[in-house]
């Protein structure tokens, strides 16, 4: 019985066309990344530190950063506040389903370039006036992508590649204002977008549980963090709680992020507030509205930022300023659908 052969039989000349004309901010080269990863420590050593230390050691002016979670879910608010407090400058940012994180970084004047899928909005809550201004004034340089495209750019990096094919963006202005290349499939001859791998300098992910070495578990949707954790050259973990290593080893199939990806582990309970931490606490909609309102007026905004970010010592103080344990207990009840 003869079976068909779907293979390519003869050499074929094809053309790679740069259809996206904006800047590709990060080097997609897998060999450069391999050189970095070759040097990266695999030492099973305690990495627990403070946020101040983690941010000052691992986030440098000019770095390109990526934040985990989705919009207002499981973002590392605490780490972003610390980036603002340390007045980090000229950061690049991967705005993969970004909402409050983008709003914060713009308010901090921290970023000057951005790979965009979703910015300036806070989903159903409305738009951030300050974030919008920053983009409309050209303060932040943009290259367009989509949520899937940025997910897959992380995936390419996580796989140790320099590119990965995809079928989105084609035919639109989104691709024209990206930095993507059009190519075709070697087997079918069909058109594909080649997405460049994205190896961020720093990834920042908030998780439910981590041990002191950085082995992490996440509950609820992982969003794109499996791939982003592996794509990032350095990785900062904030965690709701530190757990004994034995808890990780009890269910090794639950480990989403292995320790050797991680550079720093910081225990920050409620570290995602005012965002939603699955199974832990719901988003603080009132406080998020305060943010949107404060941005309406520059003076109000300056005071608001001073009060909430620059004037506080640490994230505990921010939590206390905004309702403290009572409000957090309320948000926990909301998360668990328990009527007050």
């Amino acid at each position, binding site marked *: 019985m003869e079976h068909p052969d779907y293979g390519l039989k003869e050499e074929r000349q094809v053309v790679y066309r740069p259809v996206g004309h904006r800047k590709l901010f990060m080097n997609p080269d897998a060999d450069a990344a391999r050189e970095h990863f070759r040097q990266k420590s695999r030492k099973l050593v305690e990495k627990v530190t403070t946020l101040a230390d983690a941010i000052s050691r691992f986030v440098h002016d000019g770095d390109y950063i990526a934040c985990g979670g989705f*919009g207002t879910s499981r973002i590392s608010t605490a780490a972003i506040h610390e980036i603002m407090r340390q007045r980090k400058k000229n950061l690049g940012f991967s705005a993969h389903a970004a909402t409050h994180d983008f709003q914060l970084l713009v308010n901090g004047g921290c970023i000057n370039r951005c790979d965009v899928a979703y910015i300036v909005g806070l*989903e159903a809550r409305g738009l951030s006036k300050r974030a919008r201004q920053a983009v409309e004034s050209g303060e932040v340089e943009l290259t367009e992508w989509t*949520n899937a495209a940025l997910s897959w750019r992380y995936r390419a990096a996580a796989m140790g590649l320099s590119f990965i094919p995809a079928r989105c963006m084609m035919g639109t202005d989104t691709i024209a204002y990206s930095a993507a290349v059009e190519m075709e499939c070697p087997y079918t001859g069909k058109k594909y977008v080649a997405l460049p791998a994205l190896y961020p300098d720093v990834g920042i992910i908030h998780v439910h549980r981590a041990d002191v070495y950085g082995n992490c578990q996440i509950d609820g949707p992982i969003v794109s963090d499996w791939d982003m954790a592996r794509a990032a050259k350095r990785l900062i973990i904030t965690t709701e709680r530190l757990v004994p290593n034995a808890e990780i080893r009890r269910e090794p199939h639950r480990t989403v992020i292995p320790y050797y990806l991680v550079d720093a582990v910081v225990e920050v309970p409620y570290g995602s507030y005012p965002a939603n931490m699955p199974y832990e606490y719901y988003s603080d909609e009132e406080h998020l509205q305060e943010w949107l309102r404060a941005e309406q007026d520059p003076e109000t905004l300056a005071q608001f930022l001073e009060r909430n970010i620059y004037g506080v010592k640490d994230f505990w103080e921010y939590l206390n300023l905004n309702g403290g344990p009572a409000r957090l207990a309320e948000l926990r009840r909301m998360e668990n659908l328990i009527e007050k």
Partner: protein
Amino acid sequence: MEYNRMELMICLASRFLENNSTVVVGTGAPCAAAMLAQHLHAPDLMIMFEAGGIGPILPSMPISVGDSRTFYKALVAGSMPEIMETCQRGMVDYTFLGGAQIDMYGNINSTMIGKDFDRPQVRFPGSGGANDLASFCWRVMVITPQDKRRFTNDIDFITTPGYLTGKGAREAAGLPPGCGPYKVITDLCVLGFDEETKRMQVESIHPGVTREQIIENTGFELLWSPSLTTSEPPTAEELRILREKVDPYRYIIGRS
């Protein structure tokens, strides 16, 4: 029975969702339409959210596409790539999109108003997952108010592909064949797309709305379906479920 235009749009949209099909929704009206369909004719409509939730038993309207409601007692709390790849693989039937501008081929702008990308007059959020979903899902639906500014062929930025420049254009651009815009549900009418030209065509006019009103509120020339009808208004049952079960706090239907 009285109803507002948001209620009308949600009810009409929900009727297009077949039982035992898959749909990726965002927050707001699309989610309400999907929940309404589940309560009525499509109990096994499988709702998915971009951040990774699949098949939740939605206790209330999610505020965010990633919030805990989107995977409450769900079948899967997965990942964004999982959802996007399920779409790219051809397993997702419906999705809903919105935007600031839409042209006669169903191309959507949710990126910016203005002609200079570096200094836009107005910047919107951008694609998010819209471009992806519109590239991959079999039937793309749009719920939007209708006016001349919004329904225009002078679209400033094509964020998300409709039929691009007409029949065959999606395929020529490299997009997977056989999918694209399906229905546009506005406060004036329901529009579909002409099979030959892939241009928007009015399929049903809402009660009390005139052809002239529709024309006045559209910035391009519309086609009219040969089997043009009047939209069936929301039933009492639809309104009851929508108001009591789907959106009791009127988060969405109160916006009208």
